[in-house]
């Protein structure tokens, strides 16, 4: 009986030794690779954007939880009107307001990274956008300082009022940056397509059919560029003295769609051209 037990133990060791250890070894490098990716300072712009997006989404999720708690606390205070319920509402208000600032700061950092990494943005425009986003972050940091010093509901409501006062500017800076990114992405595609078409045309036999197709393609690309230039010019001039809102953002998106349709047509012509 003892020998049988010994035999089973031996077999068990054999199985564990063969399958158990590789499983542990397979998990260990995976963990270390993710840890190194987080701590590594020399991240690419894509990796930085991915990391910041993850942070932003986590903060937003936490904000939503805190906002729900605040709504309940505020409702209780409005119903009971007691000192205890007011203190509880003030406590939750500080947490939710701080979380809101953190979420917004992460979002503006994300926009900064996007502006920095997107090709096709004019250098001057890029500098303007970076400056705007930095200004928004500065406003948020100032309000965060106010929040840290606030301990009663009056001070907390004052901090909230300060942010509410800057809402228009903060929203405008974000939408402006988003529109510039949209414009730049179309511009970058036009540039790449233009270079590609010219290269293909130069390196192939220029038959009358090819020449005609190339001319048609160039005209489509020129029309796309002209359409985009018109919208971008309007966008950059309006940015100087007007605030952007969700409504104006959507209006610009509709206009960009026209340029984008022309771009897709040019892509379709190019596909035929290279065949």
């Amino acid at each position, binding site marked *: 009986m003892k020998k049988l037990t010994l*035999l089973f133990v031996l077999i068990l060791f054999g199985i564990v030794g063969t399958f158990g250890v590789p499983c542990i070894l397979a998990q260990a490098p995976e963990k270390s690779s993710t840890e190194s990716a987080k701590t590594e300072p020399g991240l690419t712009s894509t990796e930085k954007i991915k990391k910041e997006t993850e942070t932003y989404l986590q903060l937003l999720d936490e904000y939503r939880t805190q906002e729900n708690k605040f709504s309940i606390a505020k409702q209780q205070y409005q119903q009971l009107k007691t000192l205890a319920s007011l203190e509880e509402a003030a406590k939750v208000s500080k947490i939710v307001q701080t979380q809101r600032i953190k979420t917004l700061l992460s979002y503006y950092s994300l*926009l900064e990274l996007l502006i920095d990494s997107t090709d096709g943005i004019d250098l001057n425009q890029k500098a303007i956008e970076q400056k705007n986003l930095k200004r928004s972050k500065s406003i948020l940091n100032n309000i965060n300082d106010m929040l840290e010093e606030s301990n009663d509901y009056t001070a907390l409501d004052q901090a909230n*009022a300060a942010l509410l006062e800057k809402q228009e500017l903060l929203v405008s800076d974000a939408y402006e940056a988003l529109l510039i990114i949209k414009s730049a992405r179309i511009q970058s595609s036009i540039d790449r397509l233009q270079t*590609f078409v010219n290269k293909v045309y130069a390196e192939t036999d220029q038959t009358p059919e090819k020449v005609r197709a190339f001319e048609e393609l160039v005209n489509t690309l020129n029309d796309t560029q002209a359409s985009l230039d018109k919208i971008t010019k309007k966008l950059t001039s309006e940015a100087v003295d007007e605030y952007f809102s969700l409504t104006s953002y959507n209006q610009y998106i509709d206009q960009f769609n026209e340029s984008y349709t022309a771009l897709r047509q040019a892509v379709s012509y190019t596909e035929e051209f290279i065949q």
Partner: protein
Amino acid sequence: MNEHEDQMIDQTSFQEAQITGAQQPVSIPVEKQTMQTTVTGKKKLPVLIILAIVGVAFSIIIMIIAAANMKKAPGIILNSTPLPTATPTENDTWKKLFEDISKDAKAADPAISDYPFPPVSFDLSIQTKK
């Protein structure tokens, strides 16, 4: 003569056993039991040794297979990179480049709202304004 004598003795003892049957059932089963235990004891030992050898051999085989698989794994990854079988033509290079440009153009769709403004409330006051 001796054989004859033996036969005679045997026959007598047989007859005796037949006659004195009361003693026989006691003596014979005892002998059989002792015989069985010695036989099974002898049989168990080789079976255990064989089982142990088979068990150890089995685990060694598994270890060898697993070790071979572990060594092969990176090799498979390295080999998985496509080897250029033939030099790509100019048209293939353009098609590849075009696919990349087309993908880029698709990503430029302004309708894609990849980073919308955070859905946060700007009014989180405790005292509602009248």
